[in-house]
């Protein structure tokens, strides 16, 4: 469990850490959208430089990011192989039966791999440098215009933050249940897939039962503390937009515009 780096928060005080979560969310989404416009060496160069600059600004070593890519290694290999063998057209380098390695295949494989890596890395920067709760706050703030259409933004945000709040609690509980069963002789690592799935069910059932009981108690406590409905509440946490956010936004917008400019006007 501890080896999974993808989606984890790493505390720090870097430029990127200090950015407003809204800025980070918007920049990440912009970046991911523009990745699909990049189509040649120069546009990819700009995207890569921008990404590496952001990695440096996050003050987290590149090898930590690489480790974050590892769990997706096989998925990447698989995607690349599919592209290599099934992207037909252009000069044929190698052929064996229905397997064809062609120029177009290699091109699109390279393209896909590049996009894959860039998108994962940019989202990893977001999750490495932003606490889950900040992300929830950011999402709430960005969705707040939807309030006009009676979309329950605040309720959604509270649900999200409650869910995040209880992740460690439920993990603890799962650990306790597993230990209780281990002490009675269950071996979770042993056996084939079928056997392993069989050992998971007796963990999930008590976990679910406890989670439901917890939910009832929490809602009682919330009501006792005056919670009536989500929308007419004030907020203790507040997000502040700083100069740093504006500067980062400008850097991204300029670089990303360059990419789109190169694609359509060169």
């Amino acid at each position, binding site marked *: 469990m501890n080896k999974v780096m993808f989606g984890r928060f790493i505390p720090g005080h870097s430029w990127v850490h200090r950015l407003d979560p809204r800025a980070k969310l918007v920049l990440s989404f912009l970046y991911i959208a523009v990745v699909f416009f990049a189509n040649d060496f120069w546009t990819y160069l700009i995207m890569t430089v921008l990404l590496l600059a952001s990695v440096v600004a996050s003050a987290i070593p590149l090898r930590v990011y690489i480790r974050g890519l590892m769990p997706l290694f096989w998925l990447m290999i698989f995607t690349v192989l599919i592209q290599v063998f099934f992207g037909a057209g252009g000069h044929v380098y190698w052929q064996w039966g229905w397997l064809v390695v062609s120029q177009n295949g290699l091109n699109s494989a390279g393209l896909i791999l590049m996009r894959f890596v860039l998108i994962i890395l940019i989202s990893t920067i977001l999750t490495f440098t932003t606490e889950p709760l900040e992300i929830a706050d950011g999402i709430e703030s960005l969705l707040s215009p939807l309030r006009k259409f009676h979309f329950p933004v605040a309720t959604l945000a509270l649900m999200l933050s*409650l869910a995040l709040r209880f992740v460690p609690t439920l993990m603890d509980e799962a650990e306790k249940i597993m230990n209780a069963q281990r002490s009675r002789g269950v071996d979770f690592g042993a056996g084939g897939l079928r056997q392993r799935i069989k050992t998971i069910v007796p963990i999930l059932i008590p976990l679910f039962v406890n989670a439901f009981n917890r939910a009832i108690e929490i809602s009682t*406590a919330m009501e*006792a503390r005056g919670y*009536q409905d989500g929308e007419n509440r004030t*907020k*203790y946490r507040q997000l502040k937009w700083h100069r740093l956010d504006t500067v980062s936004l400008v850097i991204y917008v300029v670089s990303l515009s360059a990419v789109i400019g190169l694609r359509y006007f060169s």
Partner: protein
Amino acid sequence: MAIIQVEHLNYQYSNSDTKAIDDVSFEIQAGDWVAIVGHNGSGKSTLAKLLIGLMAADSGKITIDGQELTPDSVWQIREKVGMVFQNPDNQFVGATVADDVAFGMENRGVDRDTMVVKVDRALKQVGMSAYKDREPANLSGGQKQRVALAGIIAIAPKILILDEATSMLDPRGRQEILAVIQQLKTDLNLTVLSITHDIDEAANADRLVVIDDGRFVEEATPDNIFNHGQQLIDMGLDVPLSEKLKDALQKRHVAVPQSYLDERGLIDWLRTSRLNK
């Protein structure tokens, strides 16, 4: 003046044959610390939930601070009553200590500047200022209960209800939280209603109300009730260590004082007496 008045209260769970609360009436004076004791399933927690309108009574009348509890007044009543529950984890709603303390104020639409001031003040009052930005996973049960208290005093209620609030804590956490509650009670002039199995918590009270099978059994001072000795167990309280020792001494024909002594009191008495048969 009676701040809580309960008259002929009845409640029955829909899946049960017997009444959980059976014609219970009592009064609690403002500024008192009253402990409600009784067996598991004696109806004590049901009573607490009825008092702040988390469930509606079948019949009877509850008056809190001069205002009758009705479906219309329930939110006003909850302004006056804060409640700490048993499980420290299941009432910690915020993502961090400060967020949790602010939760009650957020619900009431308090503006942010006021909240910032009140969160700091409340945390100071329960001695948790140093933990302001901590997440609940890094806190002990006792610390979580102190945060729960901070969240309650931030909205300045008149009455504090403790629903087995110390039962999931270790002895040290229990002592700490009781000391904090004692201090808050004096500072803020609170009325405390504690529902408990714990003898120390009950001993802290000015008066004890004993209920059994949903019926009111007795109301007296802790001294009077603890003198019942064996009967305590029947009432759903653990006999305090000091009382057990007194009983044992009495069986060996040692003359012991009649009034209730806590452990410290008993140690003092043992030291000053020369234990003559």
